[in-house]
């Protein structure tokens, strides 16, 4: 009997090939869309982590309360010792001290007189230490427009848009006018090594990137840093791990009286990022769910139509003496086989396309010009554990559910009614 049904299934293309194609396409889209949404939202979080928030960030309590003002007078002191402690406590995390600062960039003419001036947002990061991954995190090699990356102390990278406004070229000397952490005026000359275009107006408006030691020297912050940010070893932000880490750290450093005591905040605990992290978490689930339900309805319908089309065949089989429940069960088995094959094919193709998007990405930097949001200029998918089994919901369950619904008709109809449908 099984062979008989299998032969029917294989020979009747509208019963096998077409439903398998429909299931496979539906599952492929579901798997791909899930990976795409997960990747895109995850990349946006990673971009914010790389540029500003880290997966966790350590600051003094006072700095944390006024973080938006970049109050370097409230910066962490004795950071070398703190880094040693962090490395021993959280060995798998990559720690990076940073100094964020604001100031005025003065561009002198040939006589040394001010030619132009503009406000800059400065970032001091560890560019020149051999094992630092900061340049990689900020994707410097890819966003470099002119010149070269930092190779020696005293050099700076500025945003291309800003350089054009200020008529600055690589090799020019610029002066940072700011304030030290003690409140004194700070003047420091940098040689422009290159210009950058991040594709985000928030960064391209006036970014100045310098080596951490230069920033320390310019702002009188020896062995200090505004913040120390940490990146989890998985390479992606894991909210649960980050929250556990910050709880552990904060318990150890709980000192209500000392406003300069270090405090660790996970990315989701920093400003509006918490909202975005939960949005990313739930949006990805919601959007995937909507897609899964939509595909479920399509495949349900396909299963329904496929079964309704076969009422005639069921009429013959019932006339031959096959019991209704046997017809129904064989129908479900067929749907399971179709659903399983379609899901496997669809998942394979969905994963393939997701892998291509994950590996090669889709450059949308052209579309990002002038965007004020900090979003990735390359869209990438991300394959997660769910990508491997998510497709089974629409692929297998919906197909079987659709078939079951159609199969109920076999029970509801009088056998003679099925017969009439057979005759028409």
């Amino acid at each position: 009997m099984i062979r008989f049904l299998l032969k029917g299934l294989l020979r009747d293309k509208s019963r096998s090939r077409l439903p398998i194609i429909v299931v496979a396409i539906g599952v492929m889209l579901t798997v791909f869309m899930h990976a795409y949404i997960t990747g895109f939202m995850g990349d946006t979080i990673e971009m914010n982590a790389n540029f500003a928030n880290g997966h966790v960030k350590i600051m003094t309590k006072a700095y944390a309360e006024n973080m938006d003002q970049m109050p370097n007078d409230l910066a962490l002191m004795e950071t070398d010792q703190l880094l040693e402690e962090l490395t021993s406590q959280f060995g798998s995390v990559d720690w990076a001290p940073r100094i964020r600062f604001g100031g005025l960039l003065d561009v002198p003419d040939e006589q040394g007189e001010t030619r132009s001036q503009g406000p800059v947002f400065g970032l001091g990061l560890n560019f020149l230490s051999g094992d630092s991954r900061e340049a990689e995190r900020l994707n410097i090699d890819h966003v470099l427009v002119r010149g070269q990356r930092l190779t020696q102390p005293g050099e700076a990278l500025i945003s291309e848009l800003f350089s054009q406004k200020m008529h600055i070229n690589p090799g020019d000397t610029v002066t940072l006018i700011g304030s030290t952490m003690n409140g004194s005026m700070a003047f420091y000359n940098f040689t422009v090594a290159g210009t950058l275009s991040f594709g985000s107006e928030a960064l391209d408006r006036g970014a100045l990137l310098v080596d951490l030691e230069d920033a320390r020297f310019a702002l009188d912050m020896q062995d200090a840093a505004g913040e120390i940010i940490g990146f989890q070893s998985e390479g992606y932000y894991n909210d649960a791990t980050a929250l556990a880490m910050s709880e552990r750290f904060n318990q150890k450093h709980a000192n209500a009286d000392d406003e300069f005591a270090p405090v660790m905040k996970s990315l989701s605990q920093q400003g509006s990022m918490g909202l975005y992290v939960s949005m990313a978490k739930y949006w990805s689930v919601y959007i995937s769910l909507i897609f899964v339900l939509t595909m479920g309805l399509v495949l349900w319908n396909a299963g329904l139509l496929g079964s309704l089309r076969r009422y005639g065949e069921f009429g013959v089989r019932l006339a031959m003496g096959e019991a209704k429940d046997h017809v129904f069960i064989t129908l479900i088995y067929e749907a399971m086989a179709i659903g399983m094959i379609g899901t496997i094919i669809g998942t394979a193709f969905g994963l393939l396309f997701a892998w291509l998007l994950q590996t090669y990405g889709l450059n949308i930097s052209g579309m990002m010009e002038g965007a004020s949001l900090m979003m990735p200029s390359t869209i990438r998918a991300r394959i997660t554990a769910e990508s491997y089994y998510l497709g089974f919901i629409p692929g297998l369950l919906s197909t079987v559910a659709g078939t079951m619904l159609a199969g109920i008709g076999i029970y509801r109809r009088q056998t003679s009614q099925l017969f009439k449908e057979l005759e028409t």
Partner: protein
Amino acid sequence: MEKPVISIRHLVKKFPAGKGEFTALKGIDLEFNTGEFAGLIGPSGSGKTTLLNIIGSLDAPSTGEALVLGNSIGQLSAKEAARLRKHSLGFIFQSYNLLAVHTVYENVEFPLLLLDYSASERKKMVLEALEWVGLTNKIDSRPPKLSGGECQRVAIARAMVKKPSLVLADEPTANLDADNSHHILKTMETLNRELKTTFLFATHDEKVIGYLRRKIFLKDGRVDKDEWVK
């Protein structure tokens, strides 16, 4: 005395129609014995197909009784009705109703699969049935490649392969030309004589009527005439 194959007493069948009911059969009393070659004759709406469906356990009477091979159709559960059809009844339809994706061999084999015969038994029985209808040269063909007459012969082989006690044929020649109709009817007549299978037709085709040994004329859900051909 031999028990009748079919015994119908005061059979009434009503169908819901709008807010009321439509009575398709209005008190039928009939008996059929083993080996009969009989037909229910009448125009459309006379109730012949309804009666054939009840005898075939595809439908149940509203009131009255239909005993088929000792089984009271009205009392049978769906499973018992399926068992009766599986073991004892064969059906031949107007439009053949062969499974288009299966070969002639597989179509004829299907009723035997339901009866759990072994592969060797099935092969022997299928080839024998195809020999009765003269189609042993077409065993690997599929229905769409066959003529109408050949399709109906396959349908006869499928109905006869398990050697049922009763074969019910609803307008078996309606889609066939005269030559093919006579060929089919001769085949069924031969099988009726050789295997002692009871054949009951529902028809208004003169060609079929000409072969019948018992003619039951139905009119408006009642038996109008019951004639035996000498």
